[in-house]
């Protein structure tokens, strides 16, 4: 019995491999398309540091103090692309057109105020329409202005006769240093690129599995498929999925080589947890794909549904926009996507180097999704055997 089952699985797998090899579109879905997009991301994220953002500086004072501040702005790596402009009106035009991301205004009484002991005001007008450039450029401007301000304060205190230490304590009683835990590089490629790569893996898992079953329904070849596995539904499913799963895991390996080999992202935790995690993740999306085919009984509709489900995972995972900032009614939805669990596992293992058992919960949650099609086995069998489900578009 066991032997018969296994040879059925092997036969179904062999049949599926031939289907993949003989169908250009199938080969594209399961291999070439995801691989191309994965490589596209590799090029996209190949720049190691974010280039200097364009910022306008309007120096209305043009004194030697204000020039010193401007030179400090040039010295920051975030905003070294500086457009020095004569007046705010011209700067505003550039900001509206999107040629600069913000404007630093140094008022004309800048030096006068500093020299007479009054506070000078420096304003950074940021467009705010791009949250990522906003925080980067603001950080650059703030660093330059703060460094400049502390310098002046120290000079003042020393002129007044204070020792350097005392001067520091007077200007800033409590000093602070900020540390970026777990990702001290604050590097985009280490952080954002894996999120996108894993998205491609799950889209690929979803689409290729739906494609594999959907094309059988469409071509009315389900009975032939079932027969290849000696009539066993489970055998037919396992045999069909096996070659796809193998290719998906290979794609995941390519992504792993890119992240850790080419980009040299740090790996702080356990390899085996990450590897088990990604394998289960891809199985989970295959399982959801089967489930979608079963409940919709339609190739096209399950493609639409599965496509939407896999694409939306990014937003509802909290990787860019954190879960805790979401509406409280929306927050539970994040649990409906295996991607969410995997990204937590990835961050825990690769980025934070947490203990391996902290990730067991995520693996277990993803395994629940793998069980999903068991609920729909009866329905799947009906689909494969009843003529009325075949050949539908």
């Amino acid at each position: 019995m066991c032997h018969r089952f296994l040879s059925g699985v092997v036969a179904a797998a062999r049949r599926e491999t031939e289907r993949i090899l003989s169908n250009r579109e199938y080969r594209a879905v399961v291999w070439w398309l995801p691989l191309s997009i994965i490589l596209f991301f590799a090029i996209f994220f190949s720049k190691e540091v974010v280039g200097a953002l364009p910022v306008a500086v309007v120096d209305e004072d043009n004194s030697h103090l204000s020039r010193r501040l401007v030179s400090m702005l040039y010295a920051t790596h975030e905003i070294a692309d500086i457009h020095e402009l004569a007046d705010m009106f011209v700067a505003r035009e550039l900001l509206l057109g999107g040629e600069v991301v913000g404007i630093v205004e140094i008022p004309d009484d800048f030096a006068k105020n500093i020299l007479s002991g009054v506070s000078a005001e420096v304003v950074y007008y940021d467009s705010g329409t791009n949250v990522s450039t906003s925080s980067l450029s603001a950080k650059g401007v703030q660093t330059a202005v703060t460094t400049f301000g502390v310098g002046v304060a120290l000079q003042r205190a020393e002129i007044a006769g204070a020792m350097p230490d005392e001067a520091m304590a007077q200007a800033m009683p409590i000093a602070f240093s900020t540390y970026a835990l777990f990702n001290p590089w604050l590097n985009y490629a280490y952080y954002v690129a894996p999120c996108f790569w894993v998205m491609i893996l799950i889209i690929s898992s979803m689409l290729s599995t739906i494609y594999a079953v959907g094309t059988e329904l469409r071509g009315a070849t389900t009975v032939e498929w079932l027969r290849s596995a000696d009539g066993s539904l489970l055998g037919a499913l396992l045999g069909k999925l096996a070659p796809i799963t193998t290719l998906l895991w290979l794609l995941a390996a390519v992504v792993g080589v890119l992240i850790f080999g080419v980009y040299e992202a740090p790996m702080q935790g356990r390899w085996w947890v990450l590897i088990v995690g990604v394998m289960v993740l891809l199985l989970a999306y295959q399982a959801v794909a089967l489930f979608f085919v079963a409940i919709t009984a339609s190739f096209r509709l399950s493609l639409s549904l599965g496509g939407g489900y896999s694409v939306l995972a990014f937003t509802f995972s909290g990787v860019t926009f954190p879960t805790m900032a979401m509406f409280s009614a929306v927050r539970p939805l994040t649990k409906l996507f295996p991607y969410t669990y995997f990204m937590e596992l990835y961050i825990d293992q690769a980025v934070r180097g947490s203990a391996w058992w902290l990730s067991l919960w995520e693996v277990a949650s993803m395994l629940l999704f793998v069980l999903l099609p068991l609920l729909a086995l009866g329905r799947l069998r009906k689909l494969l055997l009843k003529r009325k489900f075949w050949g539908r578009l």
Partner: protein
Amino acid sequence: MRRFISDIWRVATEEWRSVWHDEGVVLIVVFALFIYGISYSLGYGGEVLEEVPVAVVGRQGGIGRKLTRTLDASPKIEVAYELSDMGDAEQLLRNRKVWGVVALSADLDEDILAGRQSRVAILGDASYFLAYREVAEGAVAAIQQMNEAIIVQRNGVYRPPIVYEQRNLFNPSLGYGVFVMPAIILLIVQQTVLIGVGMVSATRRERGVHLPSQSPLAITVGRTLAYLAIYAVTLGFMLTVHYSLFDYPMRGEWWQCVAVVAPYLLAVILLAQAVGALFRRRESSIVWLLWLSIPFLLISGVSLPPQAFPQWLYVLGRVVPSSAAVDAWIAIQSRGASLSDIAPQLMLLCSLVILYGLLALRANKTPS
């Protein structure tokens, strides 16, 4: 001429009929924009991260207590735990109970009273960028506020050499949805047009049906009109009703908006006809095009700035209609720019309309 116009009309109505008689196409061309638009808007609906939980380690004495209160009062962070041990703080971080730690020096009170400088370490969890930013900004602002209070107490006045201020002109609270949704809505339009038109084209080819005209020009114009009519309504709804519901910025005049959206829709619909000719089976367009949503978003330079990726990719990405359109749309609607500010993007969009128009003519010529 009369013949030509009646051909256009017949093609348009036939295309319109093909859309509405096919539930798969209706789902993509009509409803997907609402489904995705609303889902994404809900996902980003919280807009800003507030009161991120942090732990304070090593609080002792009156000044430490006051600093803790100041930290807690910040809108960006909330002191969820007060601990004496860094090890406990690490556990909380790893279990995602806190997203940052503010570690006070043990001698904080003595140092301040003796006029020495004291040090505070702000540790933010950088495995989530947004959370890291809130923790760093919130804690720094609270410490600066505390410094001011100490200096005022000592000297009676606080007069720093420079008062620095940042004003976010067009997105005052730096909301996330305000940032990404304008781009996402336009991108959903592009994806649904490309996939939907591809589905209609391939279905027609599969069934061996032809449009009621021989003239490629009449076919192209007629099909374009059919989709323009649909998207004028659905996208119009998204950009007015949906926009107001979620409080997205609407700083442009209606005619400025039309000046951006009209050439964009034209370019996308024409491109979709050109691409649609490549598909043999009705499901093919989903299978081939679904992948492109993230690359299209990235290459537009809207989520990550163009300075973050290779310039040649950015330049190459300009052939995708959404790239120039999203730039122009955000300039007009989010920043309140004038048409002359976005002249380069409009020129590019118009060139794309011509380019894809020619390709669509070619695609509609080959007997389907």
